Each structure stands twice: as structure tokens, then as C-alpha cells.
């Protein structure tokens, strides 16, 4: 029954729950808690259902193709170790959901909380179940991202935002290091598949890439598990709501680092370098975290440093290169999750019921909440390593391992037991501080709220977890043993050592160390109690360096540096930017010129050199003069510039005719007309620029700039001319044109090759291009809806004062009649051009422009109101129709089982007309026609309408 098909469901269930939360109302606290609870409980049930299989050593897996070309599959894989983590993630997840139902205020946007919480659970499951390292990194980064949102849940609180940002930056940069390490690992092994990586430990350790890969992966793990020197983010993350801390910072997110170290232990561990990095980082964290924890006044801060310290303990164990130590590490992962989650929840209850988490203000809560207090005391004792509780067992194993270690540095081996003893004593001291500070002593005074026991079900998760602590501590072999065996076996495989879980091993050195730590811790707490009571906010003996402050300063410096760099190298002004772009382009081309030299083609092929034609040269003399004159006139004489540029355009058009491109010539001519109309319509809104004689000094100052621009322009022109000449005079390499020419008729069914290319061979490109046209039209239309002309040009132009619209109508009386009569002719011409386009010059683009010009002429002859009262011009409808028609023609091929835009020629026999060839691309071209017509009309008419609106506004004033 429990097949691998349930694995995707396991990950999908929380995601579905998270998505479902989006549909709840903001204050739907109960409904949302039910949903989240059901999802996590169902996930927990699935996980539990897998136990019979994985406890037999089976690995349940399922594979999907992800990026098959790169050899990547999306695989979920559950072995014993993944199972243990999935159990923690879903089990503690469920308990925290229950707790959060009571913890979260009805005023908080609770659906967002639960949605993120479930999403986080899904990402966690993704990491622990990943069967592929890239997939693992992906989910790893997702946990960073979602935890950012969870820590910053109360985003009105600056500390929460700061903590969230810090956590995100530290853990996601660690994730990047991890990705780099994983890529190296994949290069060594040749596969990202977890099973192959785990099986090639010797290959990995002997590779020259081992050291960088290992260090990068360890950095990823250390950042995630808040290990020295990256530990500082965790205390700042305590600004999160307590359920988030109870989950992320005890059982879930911070455990991922040690999860990864244990997961890859068979592949990476066993070298001195591993011991030096992992072991040392863990040891420093273990001691440092425990020491700092003693001096925290915030309950959650104390727990945060204690978490850092306990994760350090696990890291040390993993870094000892001993399989027994790894067993202890895995055992402690479980134990720490149980007692730390319950302690965070207890701290949350204290906060919730009293209104403060400050140990200096809290006292004597035992009398007010005896049940919670008892549970918290038991959990804290487990944290301290008191016998009969689970923490004692794993700590005892650690002491035993610390005694037997043999690393490359003998003095460190000898020191380790003493360091362990000291850190153990620190652990006892901060646990005592937690217990005595909060629950014993005189009744508290001046608390924001009068404390009392929390609701029944808010307490339940703590009670359950504490019960587990006790049961595991007393009868480990009956309870946790099968579970631990399963997990350990999955990590170590055949190398699994035989180990003993027992409360009583007889009188031996580890027991003496435990006792020493307890006594030492109590004594330390006594000695320090006066100092702690004084409320000084500083950790003694350590330099007053806070990683968080260093981090913020670095971040600030980076930000300032970026701003300075931007101020130095950046500009918001357009001209320098364009100058740079042009200069870089010229330089890039010049490199090629200089490198390869320049010479015109040999002209050996008679085909490539056309005869000199003085008429043609003369035409371009005019065209070039027009261009130069337009460039000069554009500053003050805009109308002249438009006309002159039109001249250059016409000569371009003649060039197209001259050199066998009738379709281009037609299109250029028509576009020339609409562009001129467009610019003339636009000019009306651009106030006149009066030429002025600049001061002599100003002109002199502008001289270098203009000289530079002139040089750039000359370089561009000269370079392009040289390039064009060189390539035109060379023999043409055989291009795909041959293909088009040879197949235009046989496969495209048309004799106009250009049109066949447009609508058939490259129909998809054309579809994209007309889409661009439609987008430009709509963008322009929506820009014009909110168009506010400049105040100077709002009034009707001076020409209209003497010349009213009535006068205009009078002037156009005779031409107007002719123009109106021309409309049907234009329409027929457009239709003709459209119909013949496949075989002769014409086609959708040309026909659309022609009919658009026909309409524009009617606007000119009759005026906007006259035309629109008689004729419903709906450019947007035309555009939509055209785009849909073109796309539908393409999609029509699907109906017959062909790819998109496959063309087909239909042979119809019409009585009287004879045989008619109707290619499907004709419909496509008709779509192009409708769209070009609509877009052109839309652009021109929308701009023309502004004049009407302007008049109206003017009259209303």
C-alpha cells in the first residue's frame, strides 16, 4: 500500500495546504489552523506508514524527468535517515501548528502565517527527500527564502526585518557556496545522483577537487546550522514569532546543516581536512554558544545560543571521523529537536501569558503555571544532560567519544575531554538560569499581564515532547532504538558500529564527566548569580565584537561603495549613455577592421559588380543632401526636417525599386506616407523652438562635445559604408536563400518568394512581428488616454485662429469630393494587393498600410467628426481580429495533426472562375492585413483625437 507514489504526495500535501490558505479570509484563524493541522497530520501519517519499509533497510524512491538533457532528474528518495528527518519535520510541524493556533493573535494575518509555515514544511521535506544534489540545493535555497518571510512575519517590526534580512543573506550565500561545492562534487563523481555520490567516497577523497568541494559544502552547512563564524544570524532571527523559532530554529531549518554533513558523511568525512574544518568549527561553536547563552537575559536569546551550542556539539561529533560519534550525532539531532522545540514553546507561553521574556523581570512563575513550569523544567534538564532524560544519553556518548579521539593534533586530542567538560558545565549553568530565572524565586511584580496556565491544547505539544524526552531517557532501547538503528544504518551502511543505548554503563569516566559537568555547572551558576542579577548586558571575557554588527557594517559599506561607484560611473543622462554605446560599438568594430584590414572585394565575379549609373548616383546625391539637411534642420525647423527626411526615405524607396525589391519599395513608400502623417500630427503638440544666438562662451564650451559627437557620427557612417562596400563587392556565400527560391512554388504555392518567406517559411517570425506591432499600438493608445500636452501647446495653434475648421472644409470642397471618391478605389486596390501578394508584389503588410492610408485620407477630407459619425472605425477590433485570425490559421494545422503554422494549398474549382488555388497562408496574410490596418489606424487616429480633446478642454476653460 505504501508505494513510492506517496512520496510526491508527501511533498505536495503541504504545498496544497499553503495554496489553499490563499483563499481564506485574513482573520480565518480556526479554519486555517484546521487546514494546516490536517495537512501536517496527514503528512505525518504518510511518513509513519513508510516505517515498516525503511526499517527493513529499503530505499523508497521515485524519479521524474526534470532536465533530461543535463542528466538531471527530479527524484524523491526516502531511506532511514531521510525518514527520521521527515518524521521530525512533520511531527514537530504538526505540534507547532497546534501550538500556533493559540499563540497567534486573532489580529495577525494568520492565513499568511500558516501558508508560509506549510510551504516551509514542503521545502524541508524536499531537502531531506531529495535524491539528487542539485534538487537538494534548490529546496535548500527555498527554505532560506521561506524562512526569510517567516522571520519577517511581523514586518512592521524593524528588528524582525533586520533579523530576516540577515538570516536570508547569510544562509542563502551559504547556499550558493553549497551549490558551487555540489557542482564540484558532481564533476568529480560524474553524477548528481545522491546514491552514486555516496557510493564514491574514495573517489571523492582522492580527487584534487576534494578540498575546495568539501570546504564549500561545509560553508553551506555551517551557515545553515548557525555555526561559528556564521552563528550570529540565529539570535537575531529570534524576532520571529515563537512558533517559527520552535520549528525552524530547533527541529527544521538549522538542522539542515548537520543533516547535510551527516548525509554526505560517507562521501566526505574521514580526512584530516574534514576533521580540521568541521570538528574545529563545531568545537568553537559548542563552547562559545554555551558560554554566551549563560549571559542572555532574553529567554529566546538564551535558547538561541543554546541551540547554536548544541548544533556545535552535533557538528563536533560529525567531525570526529568516527562512526560511533556519528551515531551519537544522529541521536542528538533527535533529542535536541524534542527538548528544544518544547523549550521554545514554553518560552513562548511565558511571553504570551506575562508579556515579557526578560529573565530579569520574570520570577516565580511556578506558582502561576505549575504544569507548564514542570514541563519546561524537565525539558531544560534534558538540555543540561540530567540523567533519566534523553539529553543525558547523547551527551554521555559524546563524552565517551571525546575521550577516545585521535586526530592529527595530539594536544587537541588531550584537551578535548576538558573542553567538553567545560562546555557541559556551561550548559548546566544556562539551563539552571532558564529554570530558576523564570520559574523560581519570589512572585513577579510589575509584569504587563497577570500570568496563568495557557489553554489546554496550547500546552499539549510541550507535554507530549517532554514525555518523549523522559521515555527515551528511561527506556531508550524500547523506544528510540529501532528508529535510531534505521537512521544510522541508512547513513553508515555496512560501516554501522555496534553501539549501546543504556542509562547505566557502570562507573566510568564519561559518568564522572557528566557528574563533573553537573556539579561544575551548579557551582558556576552560584558564582555568577550576583553578576547575572545585576543585569549587565555584556558577555564577560569575550571581546565586545558582535557578528551581527560586523555584518551590518559590512553591508552598509558595500551599499555605500555601490552608491559611490554609481555616482562615479553612472549617469541618468541619456546623451552620455548613448555616446558610450555608440563609442563601444565603433571600438568593437574597429578592432576587427584593424585586426583583419579592409579592402574591397576583387570583383572577380561579374555578378557582384553592377555598372556605374549616373542617374542612380544623382538620385543619391539628392537623397544624401536631404539626409544632411534634415540633420541640420531638426534642431529648429522641424517641419522642414520631416519633409527632408521623407526625401531621404523616397530615395531609399527608389533604391529598392532599382535593385529588384518591389515589395520593399511598396512598403517603404506607404510607411513613408504614414510616418509623415504621424510626425505632422505629433508636431502640433511640440511647442515651437525659437532659434537663438547662443553666447559666444557657450558655443565655445559646447565645441569639444559637438566635435566628439561629430567624430563618432563620422566613424559610424564611414565604418558602415566601408563594411557595406566590402561585403557587397565580395562573392556571396551560399545562404539558405537557395532553399527558399527552390521551394517557394513547389512547397509554398506562391511565386513571390519574399511573400512566401513571410507568410509560410518564416510565418512564426511574422506572427511575432505583428504581435509586436499590436503591443506597440496598444501601448501607444493607453499612453494617449492619459496624455497631458504641454501647457504652451494646449491652445489651438495660431494657424487655426485665422483658419477655422469651416474654412478648411471650404478649402477642401473640390479635393474633398475627389478624396471621398478615391476611398472605394483605395479599398479595391488594397484588396487587390492582398489577394495577389502571394504571387506578385503586395501582401498583407502592403495592403493593410494602403487601406489605412485610405482611411486617413477620409479623415483629412471630412474631419474626424464627420467621418466617425458615418463610419465606425474600430482599430482595436481590427487588430484583435487580425491577430486571432493569424494565430488561428497557425493553430488550424494542429487539427490535421501537423505542427503549428503548417501551410496547405486548397484547390477549389469555382464555376465561371475556373480553378482557384487557396493556400491556407492566405488566411494568415489576411490576419496580417487586418492587424497592420488596425495598428496603423489606431496610432494615427488616437493621436489625431487629441486635437479634439484639446479643443474640448479649451472650450471648457
Amino acid at each position: 500500500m505504501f508505494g513510492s507514489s506517496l512520496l510526491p504526495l508527501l511533498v505536495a500535501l503541504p504545498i496544497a495546504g499553503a495554496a489553499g490558505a490563499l483563499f481564506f479570509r485574513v482573520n480565518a484563524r480556526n479554519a486555517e489552523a484546521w487546514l494546516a493541522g490536517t495537512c501536517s497530520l496527514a503528512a505525518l501519517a504518510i511518513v509513519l506508514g513508510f516505517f515498516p519499509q525503511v526499517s527493513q533497510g529499503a530505499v523508497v524512491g521515485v524519479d521524474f524527468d526534470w532536465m533530461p538533457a543535463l542528466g538531471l532528474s527530479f527524484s524523491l528518495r526516502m531511506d532511514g535517515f531521510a525518514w527520521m528527518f521527515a518524521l521530525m519535520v512533520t511531527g514537530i510541524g504538526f505540534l507547532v501548528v497546534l501550538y500556533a493556533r493559540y499563540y497567534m493573535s486573532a489580529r495577525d494575518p494568520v492565513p499568511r502565517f500558516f501558508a508560509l509555515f506549510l510551504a516551509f514544511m514542503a521545502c524541508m521535506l524536499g531537502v531531506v527527500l531529495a535524491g539528487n544534489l542539485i534538487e537538494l540545493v534548490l529546496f535548500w535555497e527555498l527554505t532560506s527564502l521561506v524562512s526569510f518571510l517567516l522571520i519577517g512575519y511581523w514586518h512592521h517590526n524593524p528588528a524582525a526585518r533586520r533579523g530576516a534580512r540577515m538570516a536570508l543573506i547569510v544562509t542563502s550565500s551559504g547556499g550558493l557556496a553549497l551549490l558551487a561545492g555540489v557542482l564540484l562534487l558532481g564533476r568529480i563523481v560524474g553524477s548528481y545522483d545522491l546514491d552514486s555520490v555516496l557510493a564514491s567516497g574514495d573517489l571523492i577523497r582522492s580527487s584534487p577537487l576534494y578540498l575546495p568541494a568539501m570546504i564549500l559544502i561545509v560553508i553551506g552547512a555551517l551557515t545553515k546550522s548557525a555555526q561559528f563564524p556564521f552563528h550570529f544570524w540565529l539570535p537575531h532571527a529570534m524576532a520571529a514569532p515563537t512558533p517559527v523559532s520552535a520549528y525552524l530554529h530547533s527541529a527544521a531549518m538549522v538542522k539542515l546543516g548537520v543533516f547535510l554533513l551527516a548525509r554526505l558523511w560517507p562521501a566526505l568525512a574521514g580526512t584530516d581536512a574534514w576533521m580540521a574544518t568541521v570538528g574545529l568549527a563545531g568545537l568553537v561553536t559548542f563552547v562559545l554558544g554555551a558560554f554566551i547563552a549563560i549571559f542572555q537575559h532574553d529567554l529566546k536569546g538564551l535558547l538561541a545560543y543554546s541551540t547554536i551550542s548544541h548544533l556545535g556539539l552535533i557538528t563536533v561529533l560529525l567531525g570526529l571521523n568516527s562512526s560511533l560519534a556519528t551515531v551519537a550525532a544522529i541521536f542528538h539531532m533527535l533529542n535536541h529537536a524534542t527538548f528544544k522545540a518544547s523549550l521554545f514553546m514554553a518560552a513562548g507561553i511565558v511571553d504570551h501569558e506575562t508579556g515579557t521574556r526578560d529573565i530579569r523581570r520574570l520570577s516565580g512563575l511556578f506558582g502561576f503555571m505549575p504544569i507548564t513550569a514542570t514541563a519546561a523544567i524537565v525539558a531544560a534538564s534534558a538540555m543540561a544532560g540530567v540523567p533519566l532524560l534523553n539529553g543525558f544519553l547523547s551527551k554521555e556518548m559524546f563524552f565517551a567519544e571525546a575521550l577516545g579521539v585521535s586526530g592529527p593534533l595530539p594536544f587537541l586530542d588531550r584537551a578535548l575531554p576538558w573542553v567538553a567538560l567545560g562546555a557541559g558545565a556551561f550548559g548546566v549553568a544556562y539551563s539552571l538560569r532558564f529554570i530558576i530565572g523564570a520559574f523560581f524565586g519570589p512572585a513577579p511584580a510589575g509584569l504587563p499581564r497577570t500570568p496563568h496556565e495557557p489553554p489546554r491544547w496550547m500546552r499539549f505539544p510541550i507535554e507530549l515532547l517532554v514525555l518523549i524526552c523522559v521515555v527515551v531517557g528511561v527506556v531508550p532501547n524500547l523506544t528510540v532504538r529501532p528508529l535510531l538503528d534505521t537512521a544510522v544504518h541508512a547513513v553508515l551502511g555496512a560501516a554501522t558500529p555496534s553501539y549501546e543505548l543504556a542509562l547505566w554503563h557502570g562507573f566510568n569516566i564519561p559518568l564522572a564527566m557528566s557528574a563533573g559537568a553537573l556539579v561544575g555547572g551548579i557551582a558556576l551558576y552560584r558564582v555568577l548569580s550576583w553578576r547575572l542579577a545585576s543585569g549587565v548586558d555584556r558577555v564577560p571575557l569575550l571581546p565586545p565584537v558582535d557578528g551581527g554588527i560586523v555584518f551590518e557594517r559590512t553591508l552598509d559599506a558595500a551599499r555605500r561603495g555601490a552608491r559611490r561607484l554609481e555616482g562615479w560611473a553612472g549617469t541618468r543622462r541619456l546623451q552620455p549613455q548613448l555616446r558610450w554605446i555608440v563609442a563601444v560599438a565603433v571600438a568593437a568594430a574597429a578592432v576587427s577592421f584593424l585586426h583583419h584590414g579592409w579592402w574591397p572585394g576583387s570583383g572577380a565575379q561579374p555578378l557582384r559588380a553592377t555598372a556605374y549609373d549616373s542617374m542612380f548616383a544623382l538620385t543619391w546625391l539628392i537623397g544624401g543632401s536631404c539626409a544632411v539637411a534634415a540633420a541640420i534642420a531638426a534642431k529648429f525647423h522641424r517641419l522642414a526636417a520631416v519633409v527632408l527626411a521623407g526625401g531621404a526615405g523616397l530615395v531609399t524607396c527608389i533604391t529598392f525599386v532599382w535593385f529588384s525589391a518591389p515589395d520593399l519599395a511598396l512598403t517603404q513608400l506607404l510607411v513613408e506616407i504614414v510616418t509623415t502623417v504621424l510626425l505632422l500630427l505629433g508636431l502640433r503638440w511640440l511647442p515651437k523652438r525659437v532659434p537663438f544666438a547662443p553666447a559666444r562662451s557657450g558655443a565655445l564650451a559646447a565645441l569639444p562635445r559637438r566635435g566628439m559627437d561629430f567624430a563618432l557620427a563620422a566613424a559610424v557612417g564611414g565604418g558602415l559604408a566601408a563594411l557595406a562596400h566590402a561585403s557587397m563587392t565580395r562573392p556571396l556565400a551560399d545562404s539558405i536563400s537557395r532553399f527558399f527560391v527552390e521551394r517557394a512554388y513547389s512547397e509554398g504555392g506562391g511565386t513571390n518568394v519574399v511573400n512566401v518567406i513571410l507568410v509560410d517559411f518564416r510565418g512564426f517570425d511574422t506572427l511575432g512581428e505583428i504581435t509586436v506591432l499590436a503591443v506597440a499600438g496598444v501601448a501607444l493608445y493607453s499612453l494617449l488616454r492619459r496624455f497631458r500636452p504641454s501647457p504652451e501647446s494646449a491652445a489651438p495653434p495660431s494657424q487655426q485662429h485665422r483658419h477655422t475648421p469651416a474654412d478648411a472644409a471650404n478649402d477642401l470642397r473640390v479635393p474633398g469630393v475627389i478624396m471621398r471618391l478615391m476611398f472605394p478605389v483605395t479599398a479595391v486596390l488594397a484588396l487587390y494587393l492582398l489577394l495577389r501578394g502571394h504571387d506578385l508584389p503586395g501582401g498583407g503588410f502592403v495592403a493593410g498600410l494602403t487601406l489605412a492610408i485610405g482611411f486617413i485620407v477620409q479623415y483629412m477630407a471630412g474631419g474626424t467628426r464627420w467621418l466617425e459619425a458615418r463610419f465606425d472605425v474600430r482599430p482595436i477590433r481590427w487588430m484583435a481580429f487580425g491577430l486571432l485570425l493569424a494565430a488561428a490559421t497557425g493553430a488550424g494545422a494542429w487539427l490535421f495533426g501537423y505542427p503549428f503554422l503548417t501551410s496547405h494549398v486548397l484547390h477549389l474549382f469555382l464555376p465561371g472562375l475556373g480553378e482557384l488555388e487557396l493556400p491556407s497562408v492566405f488566411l494568415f496574410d489576411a490576419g496580417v492585413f487586418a492587424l497592420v490596418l488596425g495598428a496603423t489606424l489606431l496610432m494615427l487616429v488616437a493621436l489625431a483625437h487629441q486635437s479634439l480633446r484639446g479643443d474640448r478642454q479649451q472650450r471648457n476653460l
Partner: protein
Amino acid sequence: MSELVVALAIGVLAGCGTWLLLRPRTFQVVMGLSLLSYAVNLFIFCMGGLRSHAAPFVPAGPPPDPALLADPLPQALVLTAIVISFAMTALLVIVLLAARGLSGTDHVDGREDER
């Protein structure tokens, strides 16, 4: 020899276009872009070589020797480019008019040069 004429034409159009592109007034930039698009269209077009009296039409029947016809591929590329450059000119004109209305100046930066 017409190659030289066309090459010079492309050079003049591109030079004038670039010069206008670097000017401070929006209208100059619009005119510059339109001159540049002439130059670029001609440049792409001439990559297929210059041939008179050889328009790319094939007879209905067996295909002719492609070497005898003008190259249809650059023509197809340029045809849509012409139409799209019109659309871009239109959009740019509207943007500059709106900017003129908002900022009260036709300088490309939306404010007069301080220098």
C-alpha cells in the same frame, strides 16, 4: 560601381542618424532614429548583393537557378523591419510628447542641461 554609391548612401544616412541620436532634443533623436533605420534597412538589404531586373519571382513550375534572382531573404527581413520601425517611431513620438507635457522641456533628460 553602384555598390560604392549605396555604401556612401548608407554611410551618410548612418552618420546623420548617429549625429542626431546624440543631440539633446527629443525631436532630433526621433529624426535620428528614423534616418538610422533607413541606413540599417539598406545595409541589411545590400547584404544580398545588388541586382537590377531580377526581382525574386519564380515561375509557376520548376524553380529557376537561384543565382539569377535577387536574394529574397534580406528583403523579407527588411520588409517587416520597415513596418516595425514605423510602430517604434510612433511610440517614441507619443512618449516624447507625453514627456514634454510632464516635464515642460523637450530635452531628452526631462530637464534642461545645467551646464
